[in-house]
């Protein structure tokens, strides 16, 4: 299955991070927060105005802007 952007998930859907198409400082920061390849991620919800999004990763919740989330691609896992 093709990799999709995190922000394309619906609330409660999960995936595994496959690509982080960012460079420099932002990429490094994401990695440091545990957003590395092959990590499980779950989309929790969108903010009321649609941006940013709340994701759950490595046991904690993180708010992240869509602009960034669009650069992170995942392979969607079965919904449960």
């Amino acid at each position, binding site marked *: 299955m093709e990799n999709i952007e995190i922000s394309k998930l619906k609330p409660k859907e999960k995936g595994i991070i496959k690509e982080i198409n960012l460079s420099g400082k932002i990429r*490094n920061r994401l990695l440091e927060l*545990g957003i590395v390849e092959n990590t499980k991620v779950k989309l929790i*919800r969108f903010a009321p105005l649609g941006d940013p999004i709340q994701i759950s990763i*490595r046991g904690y919740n993180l708010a992240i802007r869509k602009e960034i989330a669009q650069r992170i691609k995942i392979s969607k896992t079965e919904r449960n």
Partner: protein
Amino acid sequence: MTFALVGNQNSGKTSIFNRITNMNQHVGNFPGVTVDITLGEVPNISNCQIVDLPGLYSLETYSEDENVTKNFLYTNKPEAIINVVDSMNLQRALYLSLQLKEIGIPMVIALNMLDEVKKNNGRINIEKLEKMIEVPIVPITSITEKELEKLLTVTRKIAKKSNKLNEIKKENVEMKYNKIDNIYKEVIFLPQNKREKKSYKIDTILTNKILGIPIFIGIMYIIFTLTFEIIGENLSNTLQDGIDIVSENLIIYLDSINCSIIIKSLLVDGIIKGIGAVLSFLPIIITLYFLLSILEDSGYMTRIAFIMDRPLHKIGLSGRSIVPMLLGFGCSVPAILSIRTIESEKERDLTLNLVPFISCSAKIPIYTIFIQLFFKENKGLAMLILYLVGIIIGIGITIYIKTRNKKETENLFLMELPNYRMPSIKNTLHLMWNKTTEFIDKSFTIIFFTSLIIWFLKSFDWNLNWIDSKNSMLASISKSLVPFFIPIGFKDWRIITAIITGISAKEAILSTLTVLSNTNIESIIATIFTYNSSISFMVFTLLYTPCISALGVIKKEYGTKKAIKIGINQFCIAYIVAFLTYNLFSFF
């Protein structure tokens, strides 16, 4: 000897610090709440101090706040690091632990919140973790005396002065997380997270697509009504009455002992007025900061940032800018200090430009009295319009600066949304106290001394003769400036004096007008202001140069150049807007 407490935000670091030192300090549920370095003595170990450093995720720093911690470690080279790790958030916490280990300072891990793990029917194999990460671990369940004793004993045993520290390698983050994944699988079993589940449920309402924003507005409405209309104003009035009684009695007493007129004036007009000016709006600040601290301690403040990030990002700010903005309604000093938690430099700078436009509580008495005299029919509306004018002009300026500064900005809004918790009275009071003392520390002394200086300038002439204020040094300076202010409707020199003293502190504006006239404040205002110039004056006070305390904090945090620039900019903006309003209203 120095021990440094280092850990992620919300790791419970500050609670441990408080228990060790028995010192009052606060626990924050908003990332980056510990802004200054706090010290405490370690009991039972002679000459040993412990330092609570701002929480951080990594030694590659992004916000000014995180820099504080890194700089402290490298500059002060403490003898030991106590790395506080939240067991419920082990994966991310261990990343920092692995980095800290590389520096080469002896380190011990305080494995905190093990009670939470138990509550969720989880287990951690501490021995195995210790072996795999090669750092001594002291388990902490509910921060008991015994646990802390053990922590300090272990720390003391390993403590050693390191002369040469290792630079953190431009490293392979993925490799560290691979290692963490392996450790995690081996040592921890955590079937569920009850608090996270509960937070999820709460958030389905508080950050709900439809309800989220109305709830936020509703909460703000309640907070502002409580602060400014119910609690704050009544307390302020009571305090003001108290101050009046003190000064009246002091006058009677001084007269009875035939005190010299200079001393009497110094005590009554200089010192009591100075202290009184600060005290009278302290209740407003305390109430506002108490209520905002509840939001912060509960975790809701991060949700406000989450909800508001989009509209704020549109004008170049960050969701995190909401905190300085809200604090700004109390006092700009703590507001400006809180800006450092914003990661992106550009967003930091824009927030700094916006905050002084938010009308601080010191300006309320000015509006109140002018509105009372000139806009009796629409008091509430007039007040609201003033606040909105400030905010709208501030936002306008922000957008203007944003579009001019084409520099590509790092889009670094990454914010942890910690699980909600019941705000505790103790934490809330600590948070409130920290912000209020920031105001008192920074403002009180400055306001006090400028009151003395103004008292001096208005009591003496250039030859240092004790003189009526009409002929004082201050009067002669102000009179020479009158022509400059005529275009915006200020024709009386006393207004100019009030504006000058207002730069020292906005609360000095009214007291200056009172002191310079021999009648009460209402009649002097009615004499020297017209309907038009009163509007112009309110707008001018709303917008012009921030007080010295605020400028001082800007200088300290962002440099002298920035402080001067903001000071001059705001003066010009205030002048232009006052000019426009004055002349516009003159048409009608």
